[in-house]
């Protein structure tokens, strides 16, 4: 029988690369004591599905999400849970239409075999109504949970249209983490980058440095986010940040061109630049192995 590691090696041939979470030079300290006895597990990250988008950057926008759901369902080994890191829907001024899009999105992803789904909003879902519609359908915009020795934190940096986490949530973060050992593996999910990736393109969180300061005193912190519609890997101190591809259209590399316009759609390769990822948590040393997948099986 094919084991999971061999399966990933085969799958990655058509779908992406295997990337070790820790960037060169990063330090992974003291993870073993805090996570002793826990097994490895993996989760799937999907991001920026922008349900409701219509435009030339993805003429197949009404089917991309469903294809991704089918591909995730076809994985031989299903993940422990699936996280959506924001921009579930494309923005609209019409509050009824916003709720309709969020409801349709929820119905589509309910077809996933895995029923442990974790959500958070992006600015397209939440910034125009301070998250009101999102909360009606999906609940809190920030929360935490524990899974097999890892503490997961979902941070909301989009309900404020100015992209702030805000003092209330920062205080919540501080108290949420206070009960943990400093060596506890911590994974943060958020929509926007917490660091100043490209402020001229609004790829930042206004008070993200305050959140990073709080996280900095914990030895094993990794951030997974969306927003920028591409893979990107960055390190602030010992904290590693990984952005995900989108499921709607790719955006250019940070500041690589004058404007942050979507990359042109390629009819010969309609899913080029799109995809999702698996993240294998190696809890004993707080490392995360990332495997990128295409929207459809290659």
């Amino acid at each position, binding site marked *: 029988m094919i084991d999971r590691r061999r399966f990933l090696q085969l799958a990655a041939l058509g779908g992406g690369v295997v990337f070790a979470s820790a960037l060169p030079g990063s330090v992974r300290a003291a993870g073993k004591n805090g996570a002793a006895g826990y097994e490895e597990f993996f989760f799937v990250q999907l991001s920026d599905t922008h349900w409701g988008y219509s435009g030339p950057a993805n003429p197949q926008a009404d089917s991309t999400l469903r294809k991704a759901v089918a591909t995730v369902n076809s994985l031989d080994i299903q993940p422990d849970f699936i996280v959506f890191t924001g921009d579930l829907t494309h*923005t609209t001024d019409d509050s009824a239409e916003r709720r309709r899009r969020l409801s349709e999105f929820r119905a589509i992803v309910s077809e996933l075999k895995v029923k442990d789904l974790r959500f958070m909003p992006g600015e397209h879902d939440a910034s125009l109504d301070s998250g009101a519609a999102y909360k009606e359908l999906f609940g809190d915009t920030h929360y935490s949970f524990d899974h097999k020795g890892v503490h997961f934190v979902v941070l909301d940096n989009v309900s404020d*249209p100015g992209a702030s986490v805000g003092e209330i949530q920062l205080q919540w973060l501080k108290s949420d983490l206070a009960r943990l050992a400093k060596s506890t593996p911590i994974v943060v999910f958020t929509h926007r980058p917490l660091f100043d990736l490209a402020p001229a393109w609004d790829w930042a969180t206004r008070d993200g440095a305050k959140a990073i300061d709080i996280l900095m005193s914990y030895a094993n912190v990794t951030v997974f986010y969306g927003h920028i519609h591409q893979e990107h890997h960055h390190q602030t101190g010992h904290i590693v940040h990984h952005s995900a591809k989108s499921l709607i259209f790719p955006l250019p590399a940070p500041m690589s061109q004058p404007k942050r316009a979507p990359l042109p759609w390629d009819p010969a390769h309609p899913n080029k630049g799109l995809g999702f990822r698996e993240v294998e948590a190696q809890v004993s040393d707080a490392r995360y192995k990332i495997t990128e997948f295409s929207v459809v099986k290659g």
Partner: protein
Amino acid sequence: MDRRQALKRGGAIALLGILPAGAATARRTVASGNAQVIEVLAQRFRFTPNEIALRTGQPAVLAIRSLDFVHGFKVPELGIRTDLMPGTVTRVAIRALSPGRYDFLCDNFCGGGHEEMNGSIVVSD
């Protein structure tokens, strides 16, 4: 980049202030003391004008009026940002000390065209 570094790199001096809407000048560009006053409109999803020409060392004031939303005005390289409250004119005093192109943007998410709401300050000798 912190504000001190930004100012050093951009070679600019920027001051922010807010005046009542009635204080706005009728003409797009007027002189105010030594400072050139340039009126800018902000509305979803554009700044008008979206390219502002300045001379190196010339004091200028951007008098920005938002018509429809609490837009943001941010010039990352100059360390400038402020909210633009509808019904007020936000005055941004600036004196660019070195030539260059300094992009600005709305950094408060304002809807479907937010990503295109940006412009440039072009400073030349």
